[in-house]
């Protein structure tokens, strides 16, 4: 059996929404170079709808595929729906990830949340802080 599902390989080889948004409404960056993966998600938001999303990722095949899939899942969606996107949902949409790659989907979920939090912060919008746990709490980097 191949390392990755066909879905993962498709999103890795032909990533959707790659790039940068100039003057974004929110940006979320998670991970660090020491761990070997960084995801950065840029959002354009109008009337609580994510009208555009782009990403850049430094990382392995599943990190790039997870970012790509996560951007597909939130594009054109209301913020309330984007906040419901979990790492599990990203993994399922990719037809699964190998166990030691699950953290890539966690990074994708965190990057979305961080970008949305950034949107709220930039625009002075009040929000429920419990929706945005710290990136550091996941234990992926150095915590283990």
């Amino acid at each position, binding site marked *: 059996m191949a390392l990755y599902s066909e879905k993962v390989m498709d999103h890795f080889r032909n*990533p959707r929404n790659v790039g940068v948004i100039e003057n974004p409404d929110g940006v979320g960056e998670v991970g660090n*170079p020491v761990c070997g993966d960084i995801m950065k998600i840029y959002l354009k938001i109008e009337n609580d709808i994510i009208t555009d999303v782009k990403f850049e*990722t430094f*990382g*392995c095949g599943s*990190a790039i595929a997870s970012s790509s899939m996560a951007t597909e899942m939130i594009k054109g969606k209301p913020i309330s729906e984007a906040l419901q996107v979990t790492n599990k949902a990203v993994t399922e949409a990719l037809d699964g990830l190998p166990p030691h790659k699950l953290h890539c989907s966690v990074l994708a979920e965190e990057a979305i949340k961080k970008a949305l939090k950034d949107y709220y912060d930039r625009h002075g919008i009040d929000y429920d802080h419990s929706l945005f746990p710290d990136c550091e709490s996941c234990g992926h980097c150095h915590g283990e």
Partner: protein
Amino acid sequence: MIYADNAATTKMCPAAIQAMTACMEQNYGNPSSLYSFGQQAREALDDARGRIAARLGCTPREITFTSGGSEADNQAIFSAAKLGEKKGKKHIISTAFEHHAVLHTLERLQKQGFEITLLDVHENGIVTAQQVRDAIREDTCLVTIMFANNEIGTIQPIAEIGAVCREKGVLFHTDAVQAIGHVKVNVAEQNIDMLSLSAHKFRGPKGIGVLYAKRGILLDNLINGGAQERGKRAGTENLPAIVGMAAALEQAVASIDEYTARLTPLRDKLIAGLEQIPYSQLNGDRDTRLPGTVNFCFEGIEGEALLLLLDDKGICASSGSACTSGSLDPSHVLLAIGRPHEVAHGSLRLSLGDDVTEADIDYLIQSVSEVVSYLRSISPFWRDLQTGKRPHVFAK
């Protein structure tokens, strides 16, 4: 397809396949059987042992067949440790960038009360005989240092290290898995007491190797049972693999000058081509390296993604990134030569086969350049390096 992962394993040579097939078809007896058909197998076993011994510069009885390099490393180190322990010597010297077959064996001995000194291998990936001399103590029972590194290909000054060990009366073992068949090895001339090798690294079959131990060194069994291999390694001999290994070794040793002369300029061309990629760095000494092994780090990208895209271009290669090692940390070899984590994740090993062509080298250079450049174009880490938000590690 360009198979550029010969340090992982090699394509078997026709001579080895032929020897194995003939053995399986015609000489399937058990070398331990009394009747003449069994004794015919015994003769093939003895013949292979003699031919291998001749290529290593030792006597046949100093050769023990094992399941490969890892078993040979384990048996060599545990045997030397047991001999040392009897004399109250429980200190072992090795290096920080050994194969895990050595490092994990040493970790086990450490838990049993042995003290382990791991020598620094410097940025060039080479340990010196002086370092070994300085590290040897009254209670040192073993020095174990690899002949050539499996990831970066640097070659160690084995004969000099062996001479220091002889002078100090300390056993010297070398894991020569990457060296045999690729550089000249002679245990007598290079002062080697124990040596491990694995057939599939020089176009022989997988699952077979040798532990050479100089006469007088008492080996400790890892596998107990019958009296095969002078009672030091039980189990019916894997005769087809052994004759295949002998054929492959003979061929590799016979063609080593030609191989070196052909591969070295191609390797250097590959190095020069990859160095044209901005913010890249060759890992390990430029010259004191295996004829076919090249290892680079590229800033701003991750190795697994690089391998997958090279695979799409028909190139088989390997990397020392954490994602390919299956752990959170990148290659211990790259960390040992001082590469920071963030660039060790972006490493690539290309190990050439003896059939590689100049056109293959051009294709490798072009493909790696394209893939690195693409991955950098989607990497926020690369963007930060370019905008000065994070500092570069290498020069442009």
